[in-house]
């Protein structure tokens, strides 16, 4: 059990990147409209986030410095501030969406409108961020989030035409009547979601919270190699279930309720109950991840004491930031904006921040002063450079595609 808990950080980080409220709906939407023709993007995103979170995890383990710390140090205060404003915006918007997402999941359980539930959810999230130990947060939501594996089980029970699924996965073009531009837009959205900056902020800060040292590099790598592929598997499973059930109807997905229906159809009420548990755990976990990341980014830019690993009063400013973020998030939710749409928009904007976030990581991971003998090997550098190119392309394409396809309509 102890060994299992060691990878909770990786699993929780992956949950925020692959099955948060936005991804739950987007993956189902992609499945319903495009089948598995974008599964390769998910796989690409998994590899990309593995590469960069391993680097940021290694940096955290060897030097005790978390990622946003490095962003200001390598890019300077002005560029660092630009990055901070951009990432904070995205992370905060995602935090808004996740709190809304938890409320939406509870609405599916109890029928009460999510607009009545979200204030209580927000307060609960903040209380947990304030009081609960970091290990409790990561273990609880990391493990419970694994309930989403029910989608894999459901897929088998739906008895799909596997050759059709296979064809869809290797087709590399949108199924009729979808357009290339919409296909590309969703590809960019999926990739941006898989590699969202707050994942590395959270993972590296979590590593520092867990007081990783050089001897923990192995554990860190296990986290990365288990957590993110699992996230990818869940993403693809949700898309595949949605494809099997909704594609024949020509339906599009925009609510969480639709996402869970294939599980109910395949496995009945028990399966649905597990899926609902998974929805709550995943959205709650993602809320904790993004909430903490707002605090991590600001504190690491200004040099303030941060973290759940120290007493609350010792990291007073950090906790004030968390409180303010929660208040702002609740304020935004009170405008009755749709949480799912918020996160879909924020993912596209986060695609812009990708190069600025990952470049400093790459530079520092090669710096002997920082890393001693633990600098990147050649393979790692080659992989990382390929992804830097991909990231830059995605960053440049994100906004134009969003405008051109009217957000994937």
């Amino acid at each position, binding site marked *: 059990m102890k060994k299992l808990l060691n990878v909770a950080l990786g699993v929780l980080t992956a949950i925020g990147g692959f099955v948060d409220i936005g991804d739950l709906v987007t993956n189902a939407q992609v499945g319903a409209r495009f089948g598995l023709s974008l599964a390769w993007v998910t796989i690409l995103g998994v590899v990309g986030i593995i590469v960069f979170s391993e680097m940021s995890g290694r940096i955290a383990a060897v030097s005790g410095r978390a990622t946003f710390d490095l962003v200001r140090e390598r890019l300077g205060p002005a560029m660092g501030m630009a990055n901070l404003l951009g990432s904070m915006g995205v992370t905060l918007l995602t935090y808004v969406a996740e709190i809304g997402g938890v409320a939406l999941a509870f*609405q*599916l*359980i*109890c*029928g009460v409108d999510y607009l009545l539930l979200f204030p209580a959810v927000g307060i609960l999230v903040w209380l947990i961020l304030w009081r609960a130990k970091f290990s409790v947060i990561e273990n609880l939501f990391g493990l419970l989030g694994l309930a989403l594996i029910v989608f894999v089980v459901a897929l088998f029970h739906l008895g799909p035409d596997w050759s059709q699924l296979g064809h869809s996965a290797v087709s590399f073009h949108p199924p009729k*009547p979808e357009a290339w531009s919409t296909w590309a837009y969703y590809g960019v959205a999926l990739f941006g979601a898989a590699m969202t900056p707050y994942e590395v902020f959270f993972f590296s800060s979590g590593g520092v919270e867990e007081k990783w040292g050089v001897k923990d590099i192995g554990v860190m790598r296990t986290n990365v190699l288990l957590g993110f592929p699992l996230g990818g598997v869940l993403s693809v499973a949700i898309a595949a279930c949605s494809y099997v*059930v*909704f594609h024949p*109807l*020509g*339906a*599009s*997905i*925009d*609510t969480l*309720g*639709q996402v*869970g*229906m294939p599980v*109910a*159809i395949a496995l*009945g*009420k028990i399966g*649905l*109950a597990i899926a*609902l548990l998974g929805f709550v755990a995943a959205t709650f976990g993602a809320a904790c991840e993004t909430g903490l990341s707002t605090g991590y980014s600001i504190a690491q830019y200004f040099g303030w004491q941060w973290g759940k690993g120290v007493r609350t009063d010792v990291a007073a400013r950090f906790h004030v930031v968390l409180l303010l973020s929660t208040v702002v998030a609740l304020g935004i939710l009170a405008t009755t904006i749709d949480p799912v*749409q918020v996160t879909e928009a924020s993912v596209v904007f986060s695609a812009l921040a990708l190069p600025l976030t990952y470049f400093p990581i790459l530079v520092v991971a090669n710096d002997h002063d920082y890393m001693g003998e633990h600098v990147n090997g050649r393979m790692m550098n080659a992989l990382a450079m390929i992804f830097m190119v991909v990231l830059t392309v995605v960053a440049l394409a994100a906004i134009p595609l969003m405008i051109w396809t*009217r*957000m994937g*309509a």
Partner: protein
Amino acid sequence: MSACAPGTPDEDSWRVDALRSIGDVSSAVSSVQLALQHHDRLFGPYLQTVAVQAEDSAGTASTKLSAVQPPEPYQGRSDTVTSALDDADSLLTDARIAVVRRDDSAYAGLIQRLTKTSDRLSRLENRIRALPDDRSRP
């Protein structure tokens, strides 16, 4: 999320907006149909939430389309679309009412009507899709 301001007949492609609205309403209808068909595999609040949210999203889609002025030649088709969407909206309202009341006996009838509406919207979608566009698009 389409254009913020209602477009003039010359500027916006009514056809694209109509297709999007028909698609949204059609998805809502299919989702509720699916949910009712499998109502014994869903929890009460879950089914209710699906029905409520489907009714809302269909209503929003219809309202959005009615704000768009069709170009002259399409006025007749626009009326057909609007009436089909209105019928679908009221059917979804009936479904939501039955679900909230937990009126199982009504489900079979609703499923039939939803299937018919689904077909009707599907045919409508194909007819609109086949129309020549009212402006050239990239």
